């Protein structure tokens, strides 16, 4: 088996014990990245830095040092996370000047933690510009392709990170999830992806999109790999005052726990019209297996689910319009200065040239819902509905341990299919938005793929599990059971 066929814990243990060299693992990853360049998963391949850090890890092991929890494990990083030794562009022209990406003056906290755990960072992955999108097509550097069918999207916005793991280019990856941007691409590419509870992972050094929703989380090929990665990046950070002091769980131990007697909530609101019948069949088949294994399926109701999309697209765009005000051509990134332009004209020209269409759309919408006369009708109203969505979950979790649902209403869709219709793209997120708005944790785990049909090949399907704030251990217990039963 190739080095990258190993799970993250297996590879880290093999490197720590000297059975596999970190450099060997890094070379395997860099080779795979080169061989699958047509998938456009990476915006920057950190070849020299990866090899140098891998060699340093091997030297330290040879000197008898004890290595970290991710010893020599090749990890891909969404280009929304700041890295001092690699450009950070958020797939946007506005963070790219003369073809060169912005160099942040510091590492994100999650990057510091990966380095401290002896992970090897192999590159920065492609994404929807500023994480705005559900297909990884809104990139200034071309769309990401799905390895299961390169004419299809891998989902988004963390599509490059999902593909890096799905196509065996890296053992794991980090993404960010604001409304489903880890879970949905994980589902569409057949890997495990987790959105932690809001506050579980530091946002310091994550380029901000919607600050009350953004969370960094892991991708891995198996549930234990995601557990190992989350354990490394989770925990309080003094530099992010919204990060929680709640103790970090033992996620790998949680993967070994039995599911007998666990109560799994099933909300029919997530099986509404529009759900692909093959996706529904796969998800329901897994629920039946979990029940046969001793879990109890309990019907729950989440009546405000259908308002999740409208609520999210008001709140997220409002926050984005404020966060993206910083791209003004003054301190970093691109500047467009027409001859004779004054400061305001420079701002306007820079932002028009630097932002792509979806980013402009969201800035305009966010500015509109916050503007005088519309604030109460849209922004405040959405914040009130957000309260109702969160209360739906609190009420349901009084009776169940986790809630199960599809991650995405459809399998991977064709590139271009939803690009001209922003509303159709927003509807892609119907299953993932409520958990984001409620700030709870959720994971997507692969279940049986759809059967091949005349109009599409067999495509991956994800089952989504949601749990109360800081109950990530429950997600790992049930997701590991799904993996065993798949």
């Amino acid at each position, binding site marked *: 088996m190739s080095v990258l066929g190993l799970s993250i814990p297996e590879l880290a243990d093999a490197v720590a014990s000297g059975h596999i060299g970190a450099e060997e693992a890094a070379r395997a990853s860099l080779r795979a990245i080169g061989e699958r360049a047509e998938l456009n998963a990476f915006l920057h391949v950190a070849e020299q830095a990866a090899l140098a850090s891998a060699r340093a890890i091997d030297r330290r092991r040879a000197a008898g040092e004890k290595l970290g929890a991710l010893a020599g494990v090749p990890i891909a990083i969404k280009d929304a996370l700041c890295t001092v030794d690699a450009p950070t562009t958020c797939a946007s022209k506005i963070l790219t000047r003369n073809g060169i990406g912005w160099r942040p003056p510091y590492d994100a906290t999650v990057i510091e933690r990966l380095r401290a755990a002896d992970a090897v960072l192999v590159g920065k992955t492609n994404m929807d510009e500023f994480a705005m999108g559900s297909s990884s097509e809104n990139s200034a550097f071309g769309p990401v392709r799905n390895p299961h069918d390169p004419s299809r999207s891998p989902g988004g916005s963390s599509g490059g990170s999902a593909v890096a793991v799905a196509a065996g280019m890296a053992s794991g990856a980090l993404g960010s999830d604001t409304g489903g941007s880890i879970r949905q691409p994980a589902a569409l590419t057949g890997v495990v992806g987790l959105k932690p509870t809001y506050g579980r992972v530091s946002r310091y050094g994550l380029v901000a999109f919607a600050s009350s929703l953004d969370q960094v989380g892991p991708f891995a090929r198996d549930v234990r790999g995601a557990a190992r990665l989350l354990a490394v990046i989770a925990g309080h950070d003094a530099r992010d005052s919204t990060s929680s002091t709640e103790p970090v769980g033992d996620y790998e131990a949680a993967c070994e726990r039995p599911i007998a007697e666990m109560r799994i909530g099933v909300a029919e609101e997530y099986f509404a019209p529009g759900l692909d019948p093959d996706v529904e069949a796969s998800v329901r088949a897994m629920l039946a297996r979990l029940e046969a294994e001793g879990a109890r399926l309990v019907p729950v109701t989440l009546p405000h689910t259908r308002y999740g999309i*409208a609520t999210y697209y008001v709140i997220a765009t409002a926050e984005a319009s404020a966060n993206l005000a910083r791209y003004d051509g003054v*301190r*970093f990134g691109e500047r467009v200065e027409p001859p004779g332009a*004054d*400061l305001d004209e420079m701002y306007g020209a820079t932002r028009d040239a630097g932002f792509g269409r979806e980013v402009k759309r969201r800035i305009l919408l966010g500015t509109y819902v916050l503007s005088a006369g519309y604030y109460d009708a849209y922004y405040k109203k959405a*914040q009130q*509905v957000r309260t109702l969505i969160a209360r739906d979950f609190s009420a349901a979790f009084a009776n169940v341990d986790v809630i199960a649902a599809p991650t995405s209403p459809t399998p991977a869709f064709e590139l271009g299919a939803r690009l001209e219709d922003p509303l159709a793209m927003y509807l892609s997120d119907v299953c993932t938005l409520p958990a984001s708005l409620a700030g709870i944790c959720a994971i997507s785990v692969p279940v049986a793929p759809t059967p091949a049909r005349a109009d599409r090949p067999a495509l991956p399907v994800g089952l989504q599990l949601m749990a109360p704030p800081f109950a990530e251990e429950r997600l790992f217990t049930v997701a590991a059971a799904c993996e065993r039963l798949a």
Partner: protein
Amino acid sequence: MAITRTDVLHVARLARLELAPDELPKLEADLRRIVEYVSELAQVDTEGIPPTAHVTVAHAPLRADVPRPGLSHEAALAEAPRCSDGAFAVPTFVDES
């Protein structure tokens, strides 16, 4: 209330976005449909429901009032498109005439 061309130009000005004329029709049509869609929120009875600005943060924690190193002057300017005299340089914005 459907969104109009005037609304789009107004918010574009607020957002410091100098939209090219050929971008306008499509953006305007997209925004009209999206605003129409999110208007379904009006159906929800939210009488007496407090708004949620933040899910887990009950109060803003304070950190200890002790000095710590920040970004150096050099690092702060390193990525600036244009600087002069150790500062970010921008076009004229004060009318001195």
